[in-house]
């Protein structure tokens, strides 16, 4: 018997997502991923001063705010012919580094962990640690007061949920601690970014915050706290869970997908811009024993609209993509387009980056039997957080040394005025994966603006060849023994760290028309 399950809304993600699955004999047989909200950002940017774009596109997403600001500024840098001075790049990188650290910690503890632990197991904690007893008191107190929101209700803990009281109570303590830790990571970013969410200091040509030594010292001090949390808490937690009680999930490779991966590359280690913390590349049909990475070529990106609410067209490169809505499309089921690389769906994000970088710690886990899937995504995210922390220390040193030399610059002032006409593209790695912005300028104003974001890659619907998007493919075969408790489905989806507000912001700039929209 085939049973259809609809999860709407998928919570603990950014944005509005609906997931539908067909379950047969306890396993997912088919899946559909739909984005259900649109704001029309590209349309409102048309005709505006191009320099507005980084500020406005930052508001694509309030979780990964600054990555859009930066990627937009990079598209403008190219269109304006601006050369960002090394000082400007270092400041951009430090602001980004803080973003990565906060974002990954938030994702693991606050958006994901509740899928893997039975929080009520804290009542069985028998140890004497004062900090942990305080956590026990807090949770037991909530239960006694009959008010455990927002920790309940929840999907029923299944056989994979960690129930060991010692592990659960320390995870719950870290859940509580991490709320303040990632708040301070965002404050660290604000030292240069101006404030968070939504930095103010990233503009075309560089940066607006002229740094002083005290700011660098403050950043470094706050970075020490983050480094300690990442190295002593976050990574050990992920490894302890992934190679311990969650190893059965890791070993079965729950939520694998197409095994195609893409990274645009990001975070410059030196002024040449060639040596990057995250190298660019593409992997097609991964063989974990023999990882073959192709060079990334942006010309191979196309977007299909066959199953999305847009006017039908051949797959197009984002520069030429049209944005006309057509809600009459009977086969369509999402506002998200279907990007493809060389015609293939690609997974973007930490898993892609760690594979393309052939990161040794991560590959060590793969050797230990962690198959690529939901658990591997969490591990890749934790491991790359440490790479970013380490890079931040180096950028602090590099900034101090650059600042104290004559001719220190943070901005390309000669290229501040918009060109009469031009075009540019910006590529970056957001915490959630490969991010691209494209701009066309006519008469000093924005003529066309396009973004293909990580969750466009990952949440994409089927393409014209009926090939599923990464979320959809990763759900095939996922065990759902109880249709009322599809906990494995949300585990898989949340492991991608969805960001749907980013993925859907397109709308017909000419007609603004929506005709028909079929809702379940």
């Amino acid at each position, binding site marked *: 018997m085939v049973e259809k399950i*609809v999860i*709407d*809304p998928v*919570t*603990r*993600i*950014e944005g509005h997502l609906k997931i539908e699955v067909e379950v047969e004999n306890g396993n997912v047989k088919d899946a559909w991923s739909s984005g259900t*909200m*649109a*704001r*029309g950002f590209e*349309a*409102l940017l048309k005709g*505006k*001063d191009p320099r507005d774009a980084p*500020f406005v596109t930052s*508001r694509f*997403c*309030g*979780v990964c705010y600054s990555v859009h600001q930066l990627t937009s500024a990079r598209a403008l840098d190219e269109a304006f012919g601006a050369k960002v001075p090394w000082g400007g790049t270092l400041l951009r990188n430090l602001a980004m580094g803080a973003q990565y650290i906060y974002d990954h910690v*938030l994702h693991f503890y*606050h958006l994901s962990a509740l899928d893997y632990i039975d*929080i009520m197991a804290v*009542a*069985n904690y028998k140890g004497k640690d004062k900090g942990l007893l305080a956590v026990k008191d*807090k949770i037991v107190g*909530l*239960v*006694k007061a*009959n*008010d455990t*929101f*927002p*920790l309940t*209700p*929840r999907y029923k803990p299944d056989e994979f949920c960690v129930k060991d009281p010692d592990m659960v109570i320390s995870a719950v303590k870290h859940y509580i601690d991490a*709320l*303040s830790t990632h*708040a301070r990571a*965002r*404050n660290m970013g*604000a030292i*240069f*970014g*101006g*404030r*968070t*969410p939504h930095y*103010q*200091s990233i*503009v075309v040509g560089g940066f*607006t*915050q*002229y740094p002083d030594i005290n700011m660098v010292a403050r950043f470094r001090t706050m970075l020490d706290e983050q480094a300690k949390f990442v190295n002593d808490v976050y990574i050990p937690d992920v490894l302890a869970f992934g190679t311990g009680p969650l190893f059965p999930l890791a070993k079965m490779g729950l939520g694998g997908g197409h095994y195609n991966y893409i990274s645009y590359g990001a975070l410059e280690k030196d002024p040449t811009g060639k040596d990057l913390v995250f190298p660019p590349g593409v992997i097609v049909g991964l063989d974990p024993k023999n990882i073959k990475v192709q060079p990334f070529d942006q010309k191979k990106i196309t977007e299909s609209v066959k199953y999305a609410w847009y006017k039908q067209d051949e797959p197009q490169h984002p520069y030429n993509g049209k944005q006309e809505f057509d809600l009459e499309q009977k086969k369509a089921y999402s506002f998200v387009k279907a990007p493809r690389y060389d015609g293939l769906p690609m997974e973007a994000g930490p898993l892609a980056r760690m594979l393309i970088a052939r990161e040794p710690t991560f590959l060590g886990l793969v050797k230990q039997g962690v198959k690529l899937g939901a658990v591997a995504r969490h591990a890749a995210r934790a491991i790359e957080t440490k790479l970013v922390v380490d890079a931040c220390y180096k950028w602090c040193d590099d900034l101090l040394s650059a600042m104290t030399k004559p001719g220190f610059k943070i*901005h390309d002032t000669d290229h501040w005025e918009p060109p009469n006409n031009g075009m540019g593209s910006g590529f970056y790695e957001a915490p959630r994966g490969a991010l691209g912005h494209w701009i066309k300028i006519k008469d000093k104003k924005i003529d066309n603006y396009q973004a293909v974001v990580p969750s466009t890659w990952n949440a994409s619907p089927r393409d014209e060849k009926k090939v599923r998007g990464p979320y959809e493919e990763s759900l095939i075969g996922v065990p759902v023994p109880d249709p009322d408790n599809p906990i494995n489905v949300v585990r898989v989806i949340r492991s991608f760290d969805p960001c749907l*507000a980013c993925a859907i912001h397109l*709308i017909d700039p000419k007609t*603004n028309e*929506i005709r028909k929209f079929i809702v*379940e």
Partner: protein
Amino acid sequence: MDKKQDLYSWLEIRGVSRREFIKYCAATAAVLGLSELEFTTRVAQALETAAKKPPVIWLEGQDCAGCTISFTGALNPPAASIILDKLSIRYHETIMAAAGHLAESVYHNTVKKGGYVLVVEGSIPSADDRFCMVGGRPFRKIVEEAAEKAAAIIAVGACAAYGGIPAAGPTRGIGLHKALPGKAVINLSTCPVHTDHLVGTILYFLATGKGPPLDDIGRPKAYFEQSIHDNCRRRSYFDEDTFLKDWNDPTQKDFCLYEKGCKGPDIYSDCAIRRWNDGINFCIDCGAGCQGCADPDFYAGMTPLYTAESERSQNIMARKKAGLIPKKEKV
């Protein structure tokens, strides 16, 4: 007996079965050194006196979750204590454990009972309901329904208050002042909401049972009465027409940002005193002008953002030349 039955149905709604609960009680009672009966009775008693923590429904419409992230940035008191100890957050898509029908059932149950604080993040599409659907229903209908029995309504961020950036686009996003005409709404504009503004408003509500005094566009006077310009440390440079032209030049780094598009003289918010992120920095201090995110005209009324060509900027200079913007008094 009835109390016990109430308790079981109450738990059921929250996704805890009777069997699970009894099992849990036995375990917890043992830990607490109580008999299971005693423990269950105490829980049932507590049920009557519960609801001390005000229930909260937090809805997200055409949003970016930036206000949610800003809320979780609270350090004094920490967000964990607000979320677990001070409020009973029944529905919040980004932080709640439940998903799908479980989430929807808590929402409906809370709405039925009424008396909750309704927080709205994000705008509501006025061009067509279908631009924002949650759980298969138009977001507009959900907001109208939740507003019916709310004890207080807070619009967090520029989008929920006045429409914000989506107001400038084809979905024609609107804020609660237009979506809920006639309803009393506390507007915490700025993009995103300032952590302190939201936490302070919640604490005020907890202490007094009502919302803080508001200005004529629904914003708490305590946060929005002062002009950015009056408290700006670059103000004396504005008075002397000394404007920043090059971000690279350390001798210019404190100059007025008017020519880089700052609208501070026209905007009312306490950012320049309170600053952001626990006082670490704020827009003007990082060398970027105030873009008026606290103002009902944000964003459409502020563009172009980085020059002095907008109507707002032109108006500021005209007023300055007419002597209508007083110089800072020399102390």
